[in-house]
């Protein structure tokens, strides 16, 4: 810097004056200018195209060409700022040189890295809380539709389970275990400053993501108050940088297949089993003659008919750049995934604009806008029903032809108990209409003004508005639509959510003391409108939901409006002493419309302290330790995900008939609870950050204990009160665990090899249910309201509950001698009389394991060499159990439906099998029992990709990368279902690991291309 300017000091007035006077200086300086040329390369000496080279303090600059070369007129005392995405920015003094060789270092997580925290940013090295960062680069490696899916296996302590593997299917995310029984367990998402709990869905294109921060401990999350108990996921999208526009086109295209199929009986085997059951066990005539059986062959392989090779493709175009005053990033994307089940598929178009403008050196304005349009063609799956495509695919008899003589899809041909009640799965998938269309606008504008040195005011306002419509039509010629002459259903949901946030940030350093203070007021409100229409009885199936007016039997319409509001005051102080001791205190007060009248406001404080041992002389002497920090935090957070109006004594609307005309009535449906409030989670966290050899190896470790009190529970009460349950705050759940994250740059230079790995152990335990010791969960519709799961004090959530399988009864003698199941016949399952009262019954049920894993982990290796890059990412879960309800039903000797091939090893006389019952056994074979609580551990090669950067010398094209990739290529597991990553009960926290008609997961192979202009 010019010494005169330096002497004049830094006052704003002087600076403004100088801005003007600079123009006067320019002519005098030109004579001194000379031309400099140079080349920018990476550490491994690859030329770097598109690098921005700007003379510091000016707008003058250029970018490097395809060979990394550039030329620029400079003065000898100019300093060049050299920057490029993914590399550390460097300042180069020109001096007397006319040619420069600039080597850019890859932007690894060095000490100066900045991470996004709640309502601000912080240097990573100054963090006191437990925050995991995931770079956009990692997010974009997998072919996934949502940011939630992309997070899987990437951050310690973040468990991601896809609740449906159908295209566009949802994920459920648990950060450090689930806290709640009756309220939501998903984290709060903050998209570029806009907090959203539910319904983020697939709105954010993973390709737009710059970074994701996962806030885990109370120090990091308490600033989000009553919505922070389940952790916070901050998603930051890509913004423009000053410099020439960069145009990037990215595409991939691939094919998906079902990972595995379940071996089932063929036509001949099923017919033989049916005959055996009828003749041997029911004294009835056989259904088929031997000649008929001999002529049968394989019959229909329904899995082969229903599953297909399905294409997947993605296109993305982005343009980013800016001047030093205005920066922009515009992206558009198109994603199209067909499902591996015929008739299913998902399409999404996204548009994003991020804009930042420095209106003066004090005022910055900016905006983020996302438009998302999606279309989801669904098929019924993932729950128990006879109309699930997956259920019908598994159970449809192979004796049924795919099409009948008229070309229609026939229903199951083996009726037994009742008329043909199994609809052809192809009819379900192809004849029915089931389409959801959605449009979302998520926009936020902000203004940031520097009021004084170190004091900044930020005001933002945003909206999130969604419009979703789902159309379902069941044609009159199908089994389910027949009795009503076709059924049409239309649902329309519109939500409008607005946000205003006002924060003041003050930064001040006084000698060795550094302060940052934050204070804010925020308001958020949402209104959601639902309208439903349905109509039965159509003259034909031509129009369906397009014209419900054509139906002879319109059903009563339905509408619902629901609103919530949140008003919050928040504050945070960061204090640093000598860059050694770091203290953070934060608090938020939340007023929520959802809470009862007596408890409208909740207060959520937190505190944390960190100590950088590396700054101490005794550690400075140990050269290989580049970073060592210990952290501890404690704080309170809340969970307000209880839905709206739950504290009020609601009257429900009902309809009745008088005088053969409909009348409306009102009935009480809930008991008022003016004391209703948030769940309260207290969390302690102790952590350690270690970096060695100039942070070549970085380790982060955390231990935490989380206790959630005042669980929001819909507690069953005596129905003599007129109500089956009421919502109250009762009970306690604990999660404690250990997390470890590791990054290691094993080899640097021309050949690079980087490993990242993480592992997390969480132990979840119910401490108190408020008087009762257990609550049953999840009836699966099989028998006598048998619950599949139990919440019991002292046990983890998601525990399976059922009988203990002891083999097969071999003889009437054995049945009589043991005497615990006297009414059973030989060849049926034997269950343990655990309480020893001489009879097997419901009192002998016990906990059969938990759907929660002992640990989850992920590790990835990236290798680059001579233009090639290889990335291999594994992810897994260990020790979790799965209740395989599909197999339970496929191995119970049902002779009306198809069964598993294991029925070939069925019991057929004493000593023939101790695993599989006799043909036609049915009966009590269908209760939840230990034989089908299977080990759900798995290790998965989630993604592997191999890319090559084409060596280019083109003016118009900076780089081109071609890659092949595969997703879910390899899964190591003992689990016998379609896939061990399964959770048919959606995002429930108490019913975990149930596999019931889940949409099977796909593996995919992709070919991709990234071009940069």
């Amino acid at each position, binding site marked *: 810097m010019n010494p005169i300017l330096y002497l004049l000091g830094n006052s704003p007035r002087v600076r403004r004056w100088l801005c003007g006077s600079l123009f006067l200086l320019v002519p005098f300086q030109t004579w001194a200018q000379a031309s400099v040329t140079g080349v920018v390369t990476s550490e491994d000496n690859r030329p770097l195209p598109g690098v921005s080279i700007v003379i510091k303090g000016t707008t003058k600059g250029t970018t490097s060409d395809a060979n990394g070369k550039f030329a620029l007129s400079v003065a000898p005392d100019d300093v060049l700022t050299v920057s490029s995405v993914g590399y550390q920015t460097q300042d180069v003094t020109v001096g007397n040189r006319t040619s420069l060789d600039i080597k850019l270092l890859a932007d690894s997580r060095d000490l100066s890295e900045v991470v996004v925290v709640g309502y601000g940013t912080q240097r990573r090295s100054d963090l006191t809380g437990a925050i995991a960062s995931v770079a956009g680069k990692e997010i974009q490696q997998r072919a996934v539709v949502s940011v939630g899916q992309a997070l899987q296996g990437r951050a310690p302590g973040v468990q991601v389970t896809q609740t449906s593997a159908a295209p566009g299917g949802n994920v459920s995310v648990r950060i450090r275990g689930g806290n709640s029984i009756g309220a939501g367990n998903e984290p709060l998402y903050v998209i570029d400053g806009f907090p959203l709990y539910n319904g983020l869905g697939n709105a954010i294109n993973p390709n737009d993501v710059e970074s994701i921060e996962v806030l885990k401990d109370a120090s990091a999350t308490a600033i989000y108050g009553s919505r922070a108990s389940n952790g916070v996921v901050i998603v930051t999208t890509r913004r423009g940088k000053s410099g020439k526009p960069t145009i990037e086109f990215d595409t991939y295209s691939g094919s998906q297949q079902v990972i595995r199929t379940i071996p089932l009986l063929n036509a001949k085997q099923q017919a033989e089993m049916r005959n055996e059951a009828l003749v041997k066990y029911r004294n009835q005539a056989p259904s088929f003659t031997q000649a008929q059986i001999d002529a049968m062959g394989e019959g229909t392989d329904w899995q082969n008919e229903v599953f297909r090779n399905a294409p997947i493709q993605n296109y993305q175009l982005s343009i980013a750049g800016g001047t030093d005053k205005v920066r922009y990033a515009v992206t558009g994307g198109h994603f199209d995934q067909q499902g591996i089940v015929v008739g299913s598929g998902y399409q999404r178009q996204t548009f994003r604009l991020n804009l930042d403008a420095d209106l003066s050196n004090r005022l910055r304005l900016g905006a983020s806008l996302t438009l998302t349009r999606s279309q989801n063609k669904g098929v019924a799956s993932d729950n128990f029903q006879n109309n699930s495509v997956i259920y019908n695919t598994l159970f449809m008899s192979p004796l049924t032809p795919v099409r009948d003589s008229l070309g229609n899809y026939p229903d199951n041909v083996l009726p037994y108990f009742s008329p043909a009640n199994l609809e052809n799965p192809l009819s379900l998938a192809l004849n029915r209409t089931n389409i959801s269309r959605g449009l979302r606008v998520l926009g936020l504008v902000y203004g940031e003004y520097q009021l004084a040195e170190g004091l900044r005011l930020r005001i933002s306002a945003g909206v999130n508005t969604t419009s979703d419509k789902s159309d379902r039509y069941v044609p009159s010629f199908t089994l389910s639509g*027949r009795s*009503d002459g076709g059924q049409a259903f239309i649902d329309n949901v519109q939500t409008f959510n607005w946000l205003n946030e006002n924060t003041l940030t003050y930064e001040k350093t006084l000698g060795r003391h550094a302060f940052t203070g934050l204070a804010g007021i925020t308001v958020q409100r949402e209104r959601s409108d639902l309208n439903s229409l349905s109509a039965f009885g159509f003259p034909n199936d031509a129009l369906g939901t397009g014209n419900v007016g054509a139906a002879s*039997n319109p059903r009563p319409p339905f509408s619902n409006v629901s*609103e919530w509001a949140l008003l919050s005051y928040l504050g945070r102080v960061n204090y640093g002493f000598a860059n050694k001791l770091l203290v953070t205190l934060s608090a938020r007060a939340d007023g929520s419309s959802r809470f009862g009248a007596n408890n409208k406001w909740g207060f959520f404080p937190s505190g944390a302290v960190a100590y950088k041992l590396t700054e101490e002389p005794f550690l400075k002497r140990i050269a290989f330790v580049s970073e060592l920090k210990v952290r501890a935090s404690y704080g309170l957070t809340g969970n307000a995900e209880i839905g709206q109006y739950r504290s009020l004594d609601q009257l429900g609307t009902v309809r009745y008939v*008088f*005088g053969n005309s409909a009348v409306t009535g009102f*009935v009480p449906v809930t008991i008022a609870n003016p004391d209703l409030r948030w769940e309260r989670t207290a969390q302690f966290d102790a952590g350690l950050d270690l970096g060695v050899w100039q942070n070549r190896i970085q380790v982060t470790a955390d231990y935490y204990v989380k206790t959630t009190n005042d669980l929001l529970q819909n507690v069953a*009460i*005596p129905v003599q009160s007129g109500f089956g349950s009421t919502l109250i705050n009762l009970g306690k759940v604990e999660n404690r665990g250990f997390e470890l994250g590791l990054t290691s740059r094993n080899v640097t230079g021309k050949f690079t090899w980087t490993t990242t790995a993480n592992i997390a152990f969480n132990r979840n335990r119910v401490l108190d249910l408020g008087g009762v010791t257990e609550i049953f969960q999840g009836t699966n519709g099989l028998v006598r309201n048998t619950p599949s799961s139990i919440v019991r004090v002292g046990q983890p959530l998601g525990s399976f509950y059922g009988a203990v399988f002891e083999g097969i009864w071999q003889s009437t003698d054995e049945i009589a001698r043991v005497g615990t199941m006297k009414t059973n016949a030989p060849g049926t399952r034997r269950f343990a009389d655990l309480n020893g009262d001489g009879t097997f019954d419901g009192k002998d049920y016990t906990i059969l394991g938990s759907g929660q894993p002992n640990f989850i982990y992920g590790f990835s290796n990236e290798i680059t060499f001579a233009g090639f890059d290889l990335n291999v990412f594994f992810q897994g879960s260990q020790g979790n159990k799965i209740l395989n309800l599909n197999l339970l039903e496929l191995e119970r000797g049902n002779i009306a439906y198809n069964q598993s091939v294991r029925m070939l090893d069925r019991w057929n006389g004493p000593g023939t099998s101790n695993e599989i019952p006799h043909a036609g056994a049915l009966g009590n074979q269908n209760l939840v029992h230990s034989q089908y609580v299977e080990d759900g551990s798995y290790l998965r090669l989630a993604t592997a990709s191999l890319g090559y950067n084409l060596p280019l010398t083109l003016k118009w094209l900076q780089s081109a990368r071609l890659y092949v990739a595969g997703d879910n290529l390899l899964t190591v597991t003992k689990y016998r279902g379609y896939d061990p990553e399964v959770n048919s009960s959606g995002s429930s926290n108490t019913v975990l690991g149930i596999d019931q008609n889940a949409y099977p997961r796909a593996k995919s192979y992709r070919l991709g291309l990234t071009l940069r202009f």
Partner: protein
Amino acid sequence: MTLTIKPVVLMGLAALLLVSCSDFLEEQPQSFQTAESFYKTAADATAAVNGLYVGLRDAGYYGQRVWELSDINADQGRLLSTNGDNDLRELDNLVYSPTNTRFLAWWTAIYTNVNRTNSAIANLPRVPMDAALKARLLGEAKFLRALAYFDLVRAYGDVPLYDQPTTDLTQISKARDKAETVYQLIINDLKEAETALPWSYTAADAGRATRGAAKTLLAKVYLTRRDWANAAPKAKEVIDSKTYSLFPDYADLFRPVNKNGREQIFSVQYKVNEAGSTYTAHFTPLYVKLPLPGTVAGIGTFEVEPAFYRAMPNNYRKTVSMDSTYLDYRTNRTVGFYPVARKYLDPTMAGQFNSDLNWMVLRYADVLLMYAEALNEQSGPTADAYEAINQVRRRARAVGTPNAQPAAQYPDLQNLSQTAFRQAVEDERNWELCFEGHRRWDLLRTNRFIDVMKASGKNATAASLLFPLPQNELLKNPNLTQNP
């Protein structure tokens, strides 16, 4: 300078948004009302009472359990051996498990209605409205509360008695009150209802509880309590009102077009396509085609006990009630493996679970037979008693219709001993009111349940006289005790 002003303006705007923060956090529901915003007008009061009828349709109550707990749990109905419904099979076999979901369903549905009626009875008095309408609405609520408690006390014996709505959690775990106390509330409610309610309504209100309904139910309550002296005159009040008479054709009783007609006293209301009933599907066996296009069959949750079919005298009424053959939808052939119920076959149905049939809770034939029973118990078979039962018998042979059968087919009764007349009333009720949810309660009332069940080959004991309280409820409310 402008740049320094703008943030101040913006902050001011932000502050404006927060001005009315107490309103901001108050929930103002737009899709439902709360007790606070409701009970303001006559229309509100009417809507509150309309809501009390809806619970009658619950599957736990008159929607389905009514015939399972009464008629299958006796000797009129059964279920096929292939039916996997264990709870229903236990009822059929008189095996009473406290975990049987049928007992829980009955308890739940009725107590839900009890609380709803209590809520209306507690809140209606403060509504500013026409006094006469208010009195009538309160009468309807009291009739429905009495009906609910009567159905509870007959099923379980002593039950917790609530006469106030539940508004907080302080009273939710009451212990059982004596059946006698419950009966006092029932009788008081019905006495109030019989004066408050009109004999009839305009066509638009047909289906509401009437004075006749209150008197009929009160007669039944007296009869159940073996209070013949009150039962007979109460039944006679209904007869003498000349409000009701028998349809000459038994089949007319079940025709949707005759809903709320001359014979029906109180029915649960349904309307095809608006709120269709499921009775046709339930009473039509599997494989038996329903009167619908295509091949839609019944679901057969009720099958006729063959012995019941055989025992029923051959007359016109039997042909309306049951059939010995049926149309198999698979083969489109008429076959006759077992008898099937015909009463609830609605030819106007529009879907498998979309019939136009009401469920008759109280009807005039019931009144006549109760009157005959009470008179006989009081003073033996009087002429009035004979006339009452013979009216029902004459209608059974379709006297006065083109289907009329000669008297010899089903002769009038005469010259019977008190005991023989008692048996005749029992039989007549069995046949006239079959599949309508009366059988178990009739036999309990006359202390005949155990004998009759044993005679039909079922294992009845003293424990069969009351249902067990649902296990679920005992777990939730430690103050409840189980029946022996």
